[in-house]
């Protein structure tokens, strides 16, 4: 699985071919649109950085980008296609309402920020109704996110007493509890992993959380959006809440 970066919305095929070449594979299982708008920012830039060409979300722009991936999927019908499934990311219910009726091939999955203190319950219910799998990024609450995205009021999921207590009962790290919670919610969590990914896989097959433990974690929701996305704002936008239709 890989993504179309937000500076490649007008040339999805080139982006896809580059990914296939970089990954040394024959096709992409699922190609995601990384952001629902093409507002590029340089890697590592400060949260105050803005792209003067940035624009607000447009259903037309989104569906044009999506259409380009549909064409890469549909190629499969006549010859070997480059893409098997289409994914979307960082959507809201309002944006989904605006685009789903315009798509020929439904999205298979939607990537969203999902962790115990930011559960996006309404969005997840909506996606489930539409038969779109919820993929949860930052499933541990991203304690190692960039310094520029850390604010004093942010909550560290894995340090919350509810999670440390449950982790103690299961003799594991709170990270494993976050993953078990996500899995039992029907999410597909994608913890950032460069070293310890076997422990993550084991979370999926070792003892599940009890109903009481799941209910206790459900109460941790507090709208704790850890990375606001300010760098994607367009000229004239009020603040980062506008990115998320809040």
């Amino acid at each position, binding site marked *: 699985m890989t993504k179309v970066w937000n500076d490649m919305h007008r040339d999805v095929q080139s982006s896809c071919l580059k990914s296939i070449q970089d990954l040394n594979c024959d096709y992409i299982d699922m190609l995601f649109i990384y952001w629902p708008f093409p507002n590029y920012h340089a890697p590592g830039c400060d949260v105050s950085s803005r792209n003067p060409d940035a624009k607000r979300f447009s259903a037309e722009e989104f569906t044009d980008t999506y259409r380009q991936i549909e064409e890469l999927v549909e190629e499969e019908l006549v010859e070997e296609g480059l893409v098997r499934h289409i994914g979307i990311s960082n959507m809201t219910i309002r944006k989904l309402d605006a685009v789903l009726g315009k798509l020929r091939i439904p999205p298979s999955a939607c990537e969203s920020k999902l962790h115990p203190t930011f559960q996006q319950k309404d969005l997840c219910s909506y996606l489930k109704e539409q038969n779109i799998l919820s993929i949860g990024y930052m499933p541990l609450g991203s304690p190692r996110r960039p310094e520029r995205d850390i604010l004093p009021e942010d909550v560290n999921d894995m340090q919350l007493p509810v999670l440390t207590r449950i982790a103690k009962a299961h003799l594991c790290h709170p990270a494993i509890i976050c993953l078990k919670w996500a899995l039992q919610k029907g999410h597909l969590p994608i913890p950032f992993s460069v070293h310890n990914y076997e422990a993550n896989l*084991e979370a999926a097959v070792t003892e599940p959380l009890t109903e009481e433990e799941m209910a206790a974690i459900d109460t941790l929701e507090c709208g704790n959006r850890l990375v606001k996305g300010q760098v994607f704002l367009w000229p004239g936008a009020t603040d980062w809440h506008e990115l998320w239709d809040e």
Partner: protein
Amino acid sequence: MMDPKTVPSYQLYNGDRIPCIGMGTFGSDRVSPAEVAEAVSGGKICSS
């Protein structure tokens, strides 16, 4: 090493299946692109 085939999967709308957990690779300020590439390469070998 755990057999990846023992990891449960979800069914997508068209019946295809996908492992229930993945490996995040989004660019990190604290981990080098080379380390991420190595992890992706390892993941690819495991899943093939």
